[in-house]
């Protein structure tokens, strides 16, 4: 029934398919060429240099190898992920489990907490110890964010600051002078403006009709690191230092829940933020219809330039920014940073060369170029002192905010804790739960879903 030709064709096609699939994997050729596969994530297009820097790093490394008379060469194929973090992590989980993961994996520092424990990543301490000048040129705090169980698993690639943006148009309509507006960030930094004061300001803007009801303040429409800022601002902690277990701080969580309950009750915040698309959120804020975009990031400035054509001058004229205020007056403001890093997979065909590609991909000029193009922060001290970087007042200000920054713990179940916390906040905002009921819900869900991974404390 089936001719010999048909069967042969099928066999050839199957073989080609298998070869094509294998072509995606790292390997070493007989001529010494090491093929590496890198996966990086944006998702924003402005962060595309995360990909091109790796390719440039490989090019520079090849020059270095040639100069040293080393016959090895590196060829790297880099895939740039344009979806959000969760699908990217899913892809990595399944790829690593199927032993088809990348050789160089870049992502938010939580990839260390996710993929170091099962042994998918290799510790980089030996490589770093052999290159002290390289290691010591990074802001030391970043190495902590790249570590799990006191071992470093990734090299920082960029950093960011999460902060609140405030639109000056409604602020001026409220009677604020230019001097008041310019002094806002400093006043937050001195602890003179707390989260409660900020809520009162937003409520006043709504009550006086400066902004429409439910347009006082917008926040992120999904789970994420940002929610941890409020826990820290209200005096909570995220991790038990001795054990590395996550912490649910009841008092700080309740204060956070009450804050959002209050904002919804005063019609300062729409109860259904999850039904707002990001584009709507940003457009409303950039148009000056909304007073505060609470869960912003340093990268948003550039994103708005791309999406809405906001120029630098318009940005300076209309938008101010400050770190998330402390929970009480006199307490410091808070920012949670989410540095990106690149790690070497345990399955990489040549781990040392993979590390060296990463090393060269973060040369100071590439570090600065990427930071400016993507509105992120540099990770090397020498980069922060470079002319082009210092010339950008926004990025300079962001570096200044780093003194208030915290890092989320590298724990495999952190995402789950964030999601539970966000669910509690959502429950309060849509009016299904009171803050106290939401706290009870968060606590019960933590116990049911995280068991011994989380410590519940007052």
């Amino acid at each position: 029934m089936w001719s010999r030709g048909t069967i042969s064709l099928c066999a050839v096609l199957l073989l080609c398919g298998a070869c094509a699939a294998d072509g995606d994997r790292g390997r070493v050729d007989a001529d010494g060429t090491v093929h590496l596969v890198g996966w990086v994530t944006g998702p924003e297009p402005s962060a595309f240099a995360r990909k091109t820097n790796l390719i440039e790093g490989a090019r520079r490394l090849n020059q270095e190898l040639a100069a040293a008379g080393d016959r090895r060469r590196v060829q790297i194929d880099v895939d740039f992920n344009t979806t959000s973090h969760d699908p990217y992590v899913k892809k990595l989980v399944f790829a690593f489990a199927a032993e088809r993961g990348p050789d160089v994996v870049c992502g938010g520092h939580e990839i260390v907490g996710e993929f170091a424990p099962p042994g998918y990543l290799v510790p980089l301490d030996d490589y770093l110890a052999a290159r002290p000048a390289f290691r010591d040129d990074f802001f030391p705090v970043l190495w902590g964010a790249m570590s799990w169980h006191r071992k470093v698993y990734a090299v920082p690639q960029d950093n960011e600051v999460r902060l609140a943006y405030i639109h000056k148009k409604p602020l001026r309509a409220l009677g604020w002078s230019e001097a008041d507006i310019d002094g806002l960030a400093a006043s937050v930094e001195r602890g003179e403006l707390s989260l409660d004061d900020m809520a009162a300001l937003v409520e006043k803007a709504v009550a006086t009709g400066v902004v429409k009801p439910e347009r006082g303040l917008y926040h992120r429409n999904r789970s994420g690191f940002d929610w941890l800022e409020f826990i820290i601002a209200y005096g909570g902690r995220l991790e038990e230092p001795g054990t590395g277990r996550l912490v649910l701080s009841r008092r700080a969580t309740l204060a956070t829940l009450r804050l959002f309950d209050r904002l919804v009750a005063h019609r300062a915040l729409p109860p259904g933020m999850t039904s707002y698309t990001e584009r709507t959120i940003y457009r409303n804020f950039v148009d000056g219809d909304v007073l505060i975009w609470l869960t912003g990031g340093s990268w948003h400035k550039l994103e708005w330039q791309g999406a809405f054509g906001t120029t630098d001058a318009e940005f300076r004229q209309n938008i101010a920014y400050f770190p998330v205020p402390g929970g009480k007056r006199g307490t410091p403001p808070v920012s949670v940073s989410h540095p990106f890093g690149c790690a070497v997979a345990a399955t990489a065909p040549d781990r040392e060369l993979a590390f060296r590609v990463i090393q060269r991909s973060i040369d100071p000029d590439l570090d600065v170029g990427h930071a400016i193009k993507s509105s992120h922060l540099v990770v090397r001290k020498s980069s922060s002192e470079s002319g082009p970087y210092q010339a950008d007042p926004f990025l300079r200000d962001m570096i200044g905010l780093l003194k208030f920054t915290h890092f989320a713990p590298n724990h495999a179940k952190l995402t789950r804790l964030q999601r539970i916390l966000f669910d509690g906040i959502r429950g309060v905002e849509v009016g299904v739960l009171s803050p106290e009921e939401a706290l009870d819900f968060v606590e019960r869900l933590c116990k049911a879903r995280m068991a011994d991974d989380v410590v519940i404390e007052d």
Partner: protein
Amino acid sequence: MLRRRPWMILLAPAAVLILLFYLLPAVVNLVLAFSDMDYTFDFRFVGGESLVRPLADPMFGRVLRNTAVYVVTTLTLMNVGVGVLLAVLTTEIPDRVGGAFRMLWLLPRATPSVVYVLMWFFLLDPTDYGLVNKVAGALGGENYDLLSQRPWLVVVLLNGCVGASMGMVIFTAAIKSIPPQLMMAARVDGASAWQRIRHVTLPSIAWPIMFVTTYQTLSLLTSYEYILLATDGGPFYQTEVLPLYIFHNAINDFEFGYGAALSIGLMAIGTVLALVYWRVFRFGGRGSAAQRIEVDA
């Protein structure tokens, strides 16, 4: 043996498919349900721990209630209710118009689900940018956030507009296969349009209605795609149905063991419902017996 039982050869391809894609996954799922497998993919046998875990899960009761609400409402109002309505109405009007209308109604089914849900987002955007709010604003109304304030309404409509199209096609085919002399007899007897629908059309499509009811119940029980895209189960678990809850646990939180245990529960519910329908609708005994149709004078 094969020569004496040729039906075995005919059934073999289907049997292989069923074995590979139905039975094998079910068996793997059953095995996984006895583990606490997570993102490390390590198989650790935990006995029935995962199977009894839903009892201690604070959200499980709510999820089951949501599932019942979703299936019953979407099924009765949209997939069967609107399906029958569309089929009856579009066969009562000139065929060309009815056909065009049915073709339009099929568009959501032919549209990729992400695009379809995005179109709903454009309609329902809670700010001035949403089409519904634009119209409401032009009429002097205030903005309304349907996705947050009436999530069930959105979920049922969004799913139902797609789901009703299947019923519509099947019921239309059934109506068109009603012998024309029955309709003519009814007309001769002086039956009004409503009497014809009630006493001729509906009894004639009873079997397709039962089939669609059964099929769509089982289909809705396992469907979550549109809910995932539209509300992701929110706001605050208000539209979180069992298959979506399984997805969230197994795929978002990488709790493969627990997800598998929940899937066993879903399979059990589906099986029980299928058996109930089998008995109630008498699928086993329903043959091609002639139906008796009476028309009131």
